[in-house]
């Protein structure tokens, strides 16, 4: 894109302290075998049991598979170094999230009460974390969710978490990031159409995208809504309906097989020539799931979390080496789920080591929790920190325009188009009233945007 346009957009992004086409700062981090401080006290050498529930079957295996592989990679690396504190190997019990919420609850109880796991990780569906979070709390089970990112978890289901943490950005960030990306690249867009999977994620994306875009661009209006059932694959009637509405921009929250089916059908109906398309999860599944026929110039979201090409190799070696190790192990490129599951385990490792340095021996859960609250870690996705007030992980939200580049047989981001936003600029600050506390917005973020964002001055 030409120079001055670029400048103009950088200007626009300044209000979020966000950056276009660059970011990140070098640091040592996960996976790199940097010298560890020698463990203090005597450490038992029996293994640490870890539970991991994720989608191993069904359409969502597309997300769960990489998550499982990310976890296994971290586990193998840590065990190769002798295990946690050099003594305790990690043994993981996996279970299938597709068995349903009811079965997941039973399985989590089994893992703790019968298998006596010390840490629980995983979980992808935003329908399951609100069910499993409270169970983890009642079981006093240290838990690091790597997705299931609904705001509902820490807004309502577990308002005062003690044992549960989550490492991925919250759901509301998806819609807002897509909105900022869209406003950055297509400032003229006014007429908005939407197609979302018909469940809580889709509704969350729709609400926050429309809300944020309304603040960013003057006079935007929603001209068409489509809510296909999750895991359906025929979108042609929806696509036709959207074409009829003649929008400037279409926001898409479909993911996995749904998105693959959608873009292939949209392509044939010439949808991409008639409007700009902003997605929240196009590259969020496994990157290689998207074919070469995927058009350029689509705002390809990654759940506001991570794409394996960003931060770029020269700026952020941690990512480079992670991608290499992951690709070597699994013959595929890591998704944000892979990053999340991988980092969750290293976050635990780091907390355990810190606690051990302070107290010696194998630390109590309370000590590990204390180390996790406010903890920061240099993850493949950049700097990740855990907020003490709500146990929610935060890292810069990122998105970019799709482009077919040599070297990959699937589309990736046009480096110049990548938008990176400090997460604090798009989520409610600590202790912002939660839903039901003086407001009835669906999320704290929505309330915060409504109350604090400046309305777009009409150009």
């Amino acid at each position, binding site marked *: 894109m030409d120079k001055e346009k670029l400048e103009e957009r950088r200007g626009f992004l300044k209000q979020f302290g966000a950056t276009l086409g660059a970011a990140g700062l070098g640091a040592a981090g996960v996976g790199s075998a940097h010298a560890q401080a020698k463990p203090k006290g005597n450490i038992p050498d029996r293994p640490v049991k870890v539970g991991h529930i994720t989608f*191993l*079957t069904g359409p969502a295996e597309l997300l769960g598979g990489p998550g499982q592989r990310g976890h296994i990679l971290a586990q193998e690396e840590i065990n190769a170094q002798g295990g946690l504190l050099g003594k305790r190997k990690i043994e993981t*019990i*996996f*279970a*299938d999230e597709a*068995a*349903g*919420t*009811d*079965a997941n*609850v*039973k*399985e989590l*109880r*089994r893992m703790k*009460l*019968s298998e006596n796991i010390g840490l629980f990780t995983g979980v992808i569906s*935003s*329908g399951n974390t*609100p*069910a499993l979070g*409270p*169970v983890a709390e*009642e*079981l006093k089970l240290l838990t690091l969710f790597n997705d299931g990112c*609904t705001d*509902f978890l820490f807004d*309502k*289901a577990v308002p005062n978490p003690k044992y549960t943490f989550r490492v991925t950005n919250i759901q509301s960030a998806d819609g807002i990031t897509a909105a900022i990306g869209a406003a950055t690249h297509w400032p003229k867009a006014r007429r908005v159409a939407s197609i979302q999977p*018909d*469940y*809580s994620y889709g*509704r969350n994306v729709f609400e926050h995208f429309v809300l944020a875009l309304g603040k960013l661009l003057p006079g935007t209006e929603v001209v068409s809504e489509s809510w296909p059932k999750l895991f359906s694959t025929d979108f042609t009637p929806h696509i036709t309906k959207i074409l009829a509405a003649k929008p400037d921009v279409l926001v898409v929250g479909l993911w996995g097989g749904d998105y693959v089916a959608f873009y292939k059908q949209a392509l044939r109906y010439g949808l991409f020539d008639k409007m700009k398309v902003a997605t929240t999860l196009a590259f969020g599944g496994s990157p290689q799931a998207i074919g070469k026929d995927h058009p350029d110039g689509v705002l390809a979201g990654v759940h506001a979390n991570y794409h394996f090409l960003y931060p770029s190799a020269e700026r952020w070696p941690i990512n480079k080496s992670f991608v290499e190790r992951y690709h070597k192990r699994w013959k595929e490129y890591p998704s944000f789920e892979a990053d999340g599951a991988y980092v969750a385990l290293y976050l635990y490792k780091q907390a355990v080591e810190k606690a051990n340095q302070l107290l010696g021996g194998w630390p109590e859960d309370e000590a590990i929790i204390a180390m996790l609250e406010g903890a920061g870690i240099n993850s493949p996705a950049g700097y990740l920190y855990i907020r003490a007030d709500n146990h929610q992980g935060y890292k810069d939200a990122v998105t970019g325009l799709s482009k077919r580049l040599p070297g990959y047989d699937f589309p990736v981001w046009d480096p110049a188009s990548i938008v990176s936003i400090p997460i604090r600029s798009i989520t409610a600050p600590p202790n912002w009233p939660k839903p039901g506390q003086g407001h009835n917005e669906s999320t704290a973020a929505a309330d915060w945007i409504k109350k604090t964002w400046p309305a777009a001055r009409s150009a």
Partner: protein
Amino acid sequence: MSRRAAALVAGVVIVLALVPVVLGTYQTQLLTYGLTLAIAALGFNLLLGYTGLLSFGHSAFLGTGAYTVALMMRYLGVSSLELFILGGVVSSAALAALLGVVCVRHTRIFFAILTLALSQVLWTLAYKFFWITGGTDGLRVPFSQLTLLGGLINFPGADAFARFITYYYYYVLVLFCVCTALMWLIVNSPFGKTLQAIRDNETRARFLGVRIWRYRWLAFLVSGIFTGLAGILWVPLNGLVTPDVLYWPQSGKIVFFAVLGGFRNFAGPIVGAVIFNYLEVYAVAVTQYWQITLGVILIVLVTFLPAGIVGTAERLRARLKKKRAEQFS
């Protein structure tokens, strides 16, 4: 009931009463699930086993019971389990009465598909009206907000979960015993006999002056209430209700219970439900191929053990008896 049977029942109840003491929290909560599901199976089998109607929509009642509890908690701030039971039974009875009028006019496969279709209407409602039902996020029913015996027992404090499970287990166990006794009474009552008569020979029953569909309707009603109660008792265990509980594979599971245990047999579905609960939990635990595991078990079962576990056991016992008798004579 023969003296031997009575002794057997008494023995089983005593063993069940000892579970929390002996087996600890995990096994106890697992069995609590089993017992609630067994209540659902009892209700379901009044239709399949005793009236000869295969319902593929009983998830509707399980879900109605569960959602009634969740909605009462969310919108009425109710916390007493007794009130939940009252409300849930009323609502599932109302639903059963309504669906019954529609469904019992048909039999066989048409009845099955009709119940399936109607239960799915409910599923879409729970799914689409998210501003009331929470959609796929569902509605929470934390046991910490639950009180038993009109507020006498509640679960604050540190070890709340273990305490909850212990108390709740006995609560469910009592209700389970009551339901079982009640159902045993029903199937052996003149009404129950009439149902079986209708099952065996509708025409002849009509020529005894029995108005068939009224009895089928009543059976449908009772069946719905039992399954609804199961839904009510299930939801605090799960802590959350989502549309899954209304989706048709849930109905498939309930049918699975009955066939696993044997539906031509009073105790069959009870045993089936409890065993299925373990089966599912451990299948999910030990393998990611739990679907294939359950599928194969089901196929093997219906192919080789059509009488189900209990039914087959009884046949074997009968055969042994016969052998012994022959030896002595």
